[in-house]
């Protein structure tokens, strides 16, 4: 439903599906939103941090990336959606515009 919608809409949808690591979500988003550079991946990671700070996600597990799953030496974080996040997702889902832009 949220593919091709604003980045945070889609992120909420992905986390609403279930608990996920940031390194699982970022490649999916990179593919869908054509954001392939390292910098763009960092931007996506930062967007996840922002919605977590907003109270829509909570961190459930952290791990240092020793094997280079995402990037060697970086912090891997597993997130789970909160009730607040789910409510926000449902609110925007009801208000989506009928047409989706092709970007």
């Amino acid at each position: 439903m949220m593919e091709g919608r604003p980045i945070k809409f889609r992120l909420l949808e992905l986390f609403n599906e279930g608990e996920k690591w940031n390194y699982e979500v970022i490649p999916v988003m990179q593919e869908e939103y054509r954001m392939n550079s390292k910098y763009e991946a960092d931007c996506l990671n930062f967007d996840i941090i922002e919605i977590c700070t907003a109270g829509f996600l909570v961190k459930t597990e952290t791990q240092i990336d020793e094997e280079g799953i995402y990037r060697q030496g970086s912090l891997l974080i597993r997130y789970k959606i909160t009730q607040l996040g789910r409510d926000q997702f449902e609110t925007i889902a009801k208000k989506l515009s009928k047409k989706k832009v092709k970007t």
Partner: protein
Amino acid sequence: MNGHFKEMSKLDAEEMRRINHRKKIRYGFIMGAFLALLWGFWYVPGSLMWVIEPFTGLYEAVELTHGEIGAMLVTAVLISGANALMATIVLLIWNIHLGKFKFREMKRTIVELRAVQKYLIAAAVFAGPMAVFGSYLATGFAGAAFSAVAALAFPVVGTILTTKFAGQRLSRRAIAGILTIVMGCICIYVIGLFNEIMEGNMQPMGYVGGLMAVMGWGLEGLVIAKGMDISEPDAAFHLKMLSETGIWWIIIIPILALAGIPILEYVIPIFTDPAALLVVTCSGFAFGYCTICYYKAYPMIGAGRTMGLSALNAMVATAFLFILTGDVPSWTVLIGGVIVFIGIILMFYEKQENLESLRGQQEAVE
């Protein structure tokens, strides 16, 4: 042995998470500090515009037909319009520098009118016409110091609105910090305010203006808090500035022109007169980067703290005036400065766990 390593790396991950968290908060506070600095600096080109052509020409022309206050309001429209246009161009350069994906995100955001774009348009209305107009009305009908004090009270209104309607939580310590900063900043203008009250020239329209300014900026804070939850900062502030430019140039300026005010004649000289262009460009740069810092600080440290820090612009403006004109600040300014400093310390050194989420402790759902 392996288990031992696993235990070690787990501890390190916890440590690293804490370091990252501290970094994130520091980033938010640095953005807030830059916001105050740029906003304070913005007052320099902002007040210069009132004394250079073509703005003075417009003022004089309107003064003849519509009186002093009419002239001030019309000039304020042209100044705000020029400022918004330049800031939008500066933000355009910023986003071009970041990459095409920011423009794709802008397109995706703009079509989601009911879910997110409405907040950005509302922010433009509250911050643009409502707050700007309000503060000029307050200046015209009550006095400059009254207007400044009214504007500086906006973090209090904004904090109340965002805790009430956007669900953001603040610790008692953060609230005390915000209040202290606002008190300190108001201290700067206290002598001026006292003089204005003594002179007894305050008119009811001035109070209406003050209320419009404080509510405008406070409401802007609320709608941004709501909008930033679900939009990406770089795309969001550009769309907000674009909306604001649209409000001035597509709605208000044409309406004034149709009403017979010769505002359009003074538009072209802004871009052809080198002095005017320089001042307007400086103003656009300061305002553009100010907007960037505002929208970057919001998702990190929350609405209340960002607005509290932004009130510091009064201190910065006084400092810039001192550097540029040699106006020695009065003793109330120094007292205000000390109070502000205490407020920042109060706010910054609160328990970092409080900032884990802007909406207090949240539980995961299955």
